[in-house]
């Protein structure tokens, strides 16, 4: 502990802050392992939800055989997406030898992985979902035109379009920010040499 005259020294302030050490006991560690397993199972089930939702849309297009190939394609796409999105997600757990990497290397890898997953989401999860929605909406619109109810459907369609555009815009913005972060890390690496 430093003397009173240096009480405004940031390092003294920092090092003298009250802490409650919470080192994990073996029991707590085991509990953490169980929690991680449960979380992994929940994530896997959550990811299975998308193809199931796509399958649920089938009810909406039964009467339109011409849309069936589109629908089958959406299911195949979402299943492929499930594989591609998860393939790298399972390597997300920090490797035991991660400490062999420096902070710069590890952070760069993490940002890069996040960018990869964000791109995969648009291509392999959101894409088939939008296609499945389209497979349901198209017959609904044709039904609305035939029964003269298209005007009533406009608010729903507008909300759907706004939602789809918002998701794409937000994801694209995140992609740009991640790319900017990677560029900055590249600059640091260049000045490091």
């Amino acid at each position, binding site marked *: 502990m430093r003397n009173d005259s240096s009480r405004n020294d940031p390092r003294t302030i920092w090092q003298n802050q009250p802490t409650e050490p*919470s*080192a994990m006991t073996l029991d707590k560690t085991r509990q*953490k392992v169980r929690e991680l397993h449960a979380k992994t199972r929940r994530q896997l089930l959550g990811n299975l939800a998308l193809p199931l939702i796509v399958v649920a849309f089938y009810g909406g297009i039964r009467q339109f055989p011409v849309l069936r190939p589109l629908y089958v394609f959406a299911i195949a796409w979402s299943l492929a997406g499930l594989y591609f999105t998860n393939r790298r997600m399972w390597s997300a757990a920090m490797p*035991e030898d*991660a*400490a062999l990497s420096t902070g710069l*290397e590890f952070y760069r890898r993490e940002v890069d992985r996040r960018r990869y997953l964000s791109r995969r989401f648009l291509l392999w999860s959101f894409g088939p979902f939008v296609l499945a929605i389209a497979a349901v909406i198209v017959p609904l619109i044709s039904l609305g035109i035939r029964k003269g109810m298209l005007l009533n459907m406009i608010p729903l369609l507008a909300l759907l379009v706004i939602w789809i555009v918002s998701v794409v815009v937000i994801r694209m913005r995140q992609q740009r920010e991640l790319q900017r972060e990677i560029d900055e890390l590249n600059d640091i690496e260049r*000045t490091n040499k």
Partner: protein
Amino acid sequence: MYTEAADKFGSSLERLARAYEADPEKRRDLSQEIYFQLWRSFQRYDARCSLRTWVYRVAHHVAASHVIRERKIFSNLVSLEELDTLPDKDQGQFASDQRRSLERLSVLIQQLKPIDRQVIISYLEDMDAASIGEITGLSSGNVAMRIHRIKNILARRFHEGGGHAE
């Protein structure tokens, strides 16, 4: 090895968690995650680097992942260079007590991008430039430049303490 590390660096790791997470509940989770990953990591520890470097690397890696996962990376984190040009909201007000000074310091650190955060935390933990370089992977020149900026920022924002920040 894990017990030794947890005993020796426990307080530092708690401070590190505070530097990355303001919310007490999330901070507790982050702390536990750090200890858990530390426990896992020792299966691969081969003394190629010092115990301290190993512990801090693991802790910073977990915390950096936390920053990305919590999407804080999208919430306008700044570099030291940018922070240097930002006005201090508390300018002119001396922090009358330690608690308030600590809050100001924590807020300042939490604005920083992960790499700069690693440097300032290591600096505040009294590490020398070589150790900081070993943990972060920054060259000695890069670390020196960043420490110089940190000293300027801290001296300006913690008026009286500036003279001690060396």
